[in-house]
């Protein structure tokens, strides 16, 4: 954890923790309630990380900042929920995954390959186009109603630590399950990146396109693989968010919540996506509950952005990002 040794990062995290416990110091809140809010924030943060993870994966391997990740989440969730009407869950998931891989292949073929060697910002705008297309296409094919997704996630909240505090602490079991799923996914991805030949090839491409190509790594195939993995992550995020909020257009907006997460954590770092998600989730919930009333409420919408922005001004590459060096 080199990042933690940097004074800026360490100071930032210390300040953040200080700000987080502030309500208790000021006597605004008692510990059990605070813990409840904080836990809720951390669990939501894990869900943000899930979307952020897809962004980071694609950025690492192809240098594309994929604005379409949110649209992919929506598309995956819509596909799954409509397929489930006709077939059992397992089959529907496999089929959705196949569709997401097909989509990855199409995106590589039709969008990325013609734009190879273009500037990052051009590719970013291209993914904006892809996002619009997917939003329209998904709803045109699968319908634009609100669908409920039942994959057997527990809905009942649970009260824990009843013996320690009076009244205990309320935990949303749905979020908790989602957090476990997310953690499993991250562990699996880490293993995939570290231990398999394909994973090594992906890391090589991330480090240097040309060098990777010169030792015989096929760039095009790597891109398809990476977009497929991002499709898988989108599917998992779609299942989690879909069963939480219902499958509807607004879950594609969740990606907008994931953007501050990645800029805070650094575009190139998987741990960054996790830590960033936790920080943003925690900050959002705590600020909404304890600062919100002073501002008239609803500050959740921009708090994450402002938090990330303030950190960016000090360290433009994010918490765990690699230092950007400009050469003329």
């Amino acid at each position, binding site marked *: 954890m080199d990042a933690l040794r940097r004074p800026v990062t360490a100071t930032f995290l210390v300040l953040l923790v200080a700000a987080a416990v502030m309500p208790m110091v000021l006597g605004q809140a008692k510990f059990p309630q605070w813990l409840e809010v904080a836990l809720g924030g951390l669990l939501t943060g894990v869900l943000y990380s899930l979307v952020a993870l897809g962004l980071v994966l694609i950025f690492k391997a192809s240098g594309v*900042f994929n604005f379409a990740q949110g649209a992919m989440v929506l598309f995956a969730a819509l596909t799954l929920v409509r397929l489930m009407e006709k077939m059992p869950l397992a089959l529907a998931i496999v089929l959705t995954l196949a569709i997401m891989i097909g989509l990855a292949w199409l995106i590589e073929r*039709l*969008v990325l390959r*013609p*734009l190879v060697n*273009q500037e*990052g*910002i*051009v590719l*970013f*705008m*291209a993914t*904006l*186009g*892809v*996002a*619009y*297309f*997917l*939003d*329209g*296409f998904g*709803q*045109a094919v699968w319908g*634009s109603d609100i669908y409920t997704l039942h994959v057997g996630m527990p809905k009942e909240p649970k009260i824990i630590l009843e013996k320690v505090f009076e009244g205990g602490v309320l935990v949303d079991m749905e979020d908790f399950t989602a957090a476990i799923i997310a953690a499993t996914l991250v562990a699996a991805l880490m293993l995939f990146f570290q231990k398999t030949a394909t994973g090594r090839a992906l890391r090589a491409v991330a480090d240097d396109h040309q060098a990777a190509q010169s030792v015989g790594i096929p760039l095009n195939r790597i891109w398809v693989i990476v977009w497929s993995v991002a499709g898988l992550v989108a599917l998992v995020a779609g299942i989690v968010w879909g069963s939480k909020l219902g499958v509807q257009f607004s879950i594609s907006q969740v990606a*907008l919540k994931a*953007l*501050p997460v990645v*800029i805070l954590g650094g575009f190139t770092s998987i741990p960054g996506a996790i830590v960033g998600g936790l920080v943003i989730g925690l900050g959002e919930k705590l600020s909404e509950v304890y600062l919100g009333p002073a*501002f*008239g*409420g*609803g*500050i959740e*919408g*921009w708090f994450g*952005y*402002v938090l*990330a*922005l303030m950190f*960016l*001004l000090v360290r*433009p590459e994010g918490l765990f990002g690699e230092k950007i060096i*400009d050469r*003329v």
Partner: protein
Amino acid sequence: MIYRETGQFKTTYASDQQLFPILQDRVFVVGALAFAFVAVPFLASDYLFRAILTPFLILSLAALGLNILVGYCGQVSLGTGGFMAVGAYAAYNLAVRVPDLNLLVIFVLAGLCAAVVGVIFGIPSLRIKGFYLAVATLAAQFFLDWAFARIKWLTNDSSSGSVSAPPLDIFGYTVHGPAQKYLLVLAIVSVAALLARNLARGAIGRAWMATRDMDVAAEVIGIRPLTAKLSAFAVSSFFVGMSGALWAFVYLGSWEPLAFDVNRSFQLLFMVIIGGLGSILGSFLGAAFIVILPLALNQLPTMLGIPLSTAMISDIEFMVFGTLIVFFLIVEPRGLARLWAIAKEKLRLWPFPH
């Protein structure tokens, strides 16, 4: 044959540096303006004014502002909708709180308010660039959305931020009716376009373009990134804020913050990409394209006899926009304006291309 600059000698510095160095261009621009000011008010129907011409002109102004930032200075912004909202609500506050203020003064002051806000949110651009900046400007968008929905003072204590514009009084004369509104907007937009073209070819415009092409190199040859970037933010937000005020006062009449949400920002970015990055003409072409396309898409299925639900049409609209963005980025990254330029090049040599 007609479009040819042979024999047009530039014998003075003034004639070399004029806005449109080629006679045919001057004639064309003056002709187009005369047509828009004199002929169109008599020819167009109320529907045309209300549904196409007025929104087209106002959005052109916003696209022009965004184009200065993205196309000329290379700073991608996704907060345009927010800056439009600043213009709209600033104009509203001025109109309500300062009675008897001239409408034109209100519009200019609204633009200046937006410019100040734009500069504040442009400050991060000195440290970060590319998509980091795009995300930072999204912060502006969400913050401003929230501010106009929740801070009561900004909306004069109206619920959920929905407000109505006062009647449009200019020099004791009330503008009403679609044709008059069109003329008001046309006059403002023409002046703004002229201003933008002058700025873009002057020292400040060249500083923007140098910053866009390579900021480190621009700094080495003596361009201050601070002034270049922040002036681009200021000028861009000024135009965007003015268009926001016009959009609210002239086109919408009564509005709420939702009229300037993040989708407006994307729409404007699309106009700039499709029209042509770094081109004044492109802003107009892109705005025309994006205003007319949904209307055409709405009409087309009925004309072809294919009944489609409205939800389906809006989905198809999304798909068409997405496809067009990717298409333009791949095939013609400099947009419709580049196609126009190519056509002019061809015309210069026609009918003897060798």
